[in-house]
């Protein structure tokens, strides 16, 4: 089998490997895998859409007891958050566990890709899919339901980056406590529940009893979600909407707690992430 081609082979040699090239190569392979995995595709594409219906009816019920709750705005905001939770956090946890189990992560580490590149490259399709779905629902929903233009888009972007960073780190952390792809549904449950019920997605914090709302504000993903909300609507629900400048003041405490949580999640991921299965 070696007679056909001399080992030296052709003189053709590819270019130097770069960070961008490695992210593209990894992201492309990971996207192919996502498209070939029906379960993952269903969880990413169908499940959040089904839950949007549930979200709508829950918000409507809450509006009966909480006059002034903007059901349309909260629906679109909640849907965007839920899509990111499923497509980025849940899907990525399963992807890390799957690649680790096949020893793909260990093998990748023998190559030129740096550790962070391996983790981010694996996240590329989850991020691309999650962000395009979120944009579709966010923009389409806003136009369809005639929502106001975002008050502070910059703040929304900051919140989004913080949210995605925290979610990727949490996915890496969760994968450390997940043995198989099948058990990812259970190990991701705590964070999923916290995100959906404690971050103001299903139940806006202002409909909760004050003490419960205060606790929820301190949960890992709440600050990032609140930043997006403040940037979008000019309020986190606790006070009247403000303008671009005023929104920074409302956002300040969320920025601090959000940054702390993001740093903690990254620390946990670095500390506990496993590149190969336990033997």
């Amino acid at each position, binding site marked *: 089998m070696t007679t056909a081609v001399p080992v030296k082979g052709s003189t053709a040699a590819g270019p130097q490997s770069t960070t961008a090239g490695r992210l593209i190569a990894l992201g492309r392979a990971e996207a192919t895998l996502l498209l070939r995995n029906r379960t993952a595709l269903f969880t990413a594409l169908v499940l959040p859409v089904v839950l949007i219906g549930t979200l709508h009816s829950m918000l409507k019920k809450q509006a009966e007891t909480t006059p002034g709750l903007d059901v349309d705005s909260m629906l679109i905001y909640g849907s965007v958050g839920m899509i990111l939770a499923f497509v980025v956090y849940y899907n990525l946890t399963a992807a890390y566990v799957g690649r680790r189990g096949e020893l793909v992560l260990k093998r990748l580490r*023998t190559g*030129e890709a740096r550790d962070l590149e391996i983790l981010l490259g694996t996240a590329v399709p989850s991020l691309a899919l999650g962000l395009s779905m979120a944009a579709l629902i966010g923009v389409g929903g806003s136009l369809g339901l005639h929502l106001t233009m975002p008050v502070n888009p910059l703040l929304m972007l900051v919140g989004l980056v913080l949210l995605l960073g925290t979610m990727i780190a949490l996915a890496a952390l969760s994968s450390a406590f997940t043995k198989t792809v099948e058990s990812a549904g259970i190990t991701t449950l705590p964070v999923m529940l916290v995100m959906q019920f404690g971050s103001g997605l299903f139940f806006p914090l202002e409909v909760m009893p004050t003490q419960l709302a205060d606790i929820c504000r301190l949960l890992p993903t709440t600050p990032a979600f609140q930043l997006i909300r403040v940037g979008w609507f000019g309020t986190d629900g606790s006070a009247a909407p403000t303008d671009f400048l005023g929104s920074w003041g409302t956002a300040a405490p969320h920025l601090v707690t959000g940054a702390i949580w993001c740093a903690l999640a990254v620390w946990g991921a670095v500390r506990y992430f496993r590149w190969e299965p336990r033997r």
Partner: protein
Amino acid sequence: METSQPARPGDHVIEVTDLRRHYGTGATEYQAVRGVDLTVGRGELFALLGTNGAGKTSTMEVIEGLAAPSGGTVRVLGHDPFTERAAVRPRIGVMLQEGGFPGELTVAETGRSWAGMTSGARPVAEALELVGLGHRAGVRVKQLSGGERRRLDLAMALLGRPEVLFLDEPSTGLDPEARAAVWQLVRELRAQGTTVLLTTHYLEEAEELADRLAIMHGGQVVTTGTVAEVIAGRPSRITFELPEFTGTPLPVLAGAEFTVDGRKVTAHSTALQDTLTDLLGWARQHGIALGALDARSASLEEAFLAIASEAAHQAPPEAPARPARRRLIGSAR
């Protein structure tokens, strides 16, 4: 920056000094590697042999830069492979003991993604052709046989035309024909100056390929040298069966020792030709037919088995109560 001087031609490409690696802490601590020294010169093919659990893969992983050593130093091409990973990785190729490719990607897709992460990658088709997998390019990895997967792994390790190649049990699971082809490929690579460090279970493989080898046991190198050096001084072996009721006592032969087990006799000799001549003369003189007669020079296999059993009878030096093997499984990694 004195640590990152590039290796000059003729320098040692791999230098390992007093390498130690342990897993776990306290009561569950297990020392997998206990002070290994080895050097591999440019263009040399070095084989690391050992029984299961001898510490071969633990040693390899540190030299490959996958893990930091617990003690000692490792230099590959003049760099620390763990802390100076970026300097080393573009110049080496690694084949792990098993797998590492997603089952749902095809062979060609796997190659394409690896090429995107490898500096100066050769064309993927060429790499696949080298290992005889060109016709399987469109097949998903999960549908490959075990041997085909090993060859895909080898192709990916060769993608960047590495100066140093690490092969962890490269021919495990291959049929004899594929194994011979892999050996031929490795010989060609070495002929072009590639430095190769390989581990293997197959002593025949080391005998065929290795310029030098080391035999590991209990996390230490027990013997090292060329095949001839390792075998040197090991006795040859003659075995035969005596007919029933010969009544004739066995001859006393210079340089040979007999052990008798019923009718089966084994002789260890440091002078095979003389011993055999005397034995055959004795048999003819007494009209004795020697059944199942077999005479062989010392082989690496015999040397290995003897060295492994000798080492097993000596407790490793400075070894605190060594945890049982199941401990390793429980606490390692």
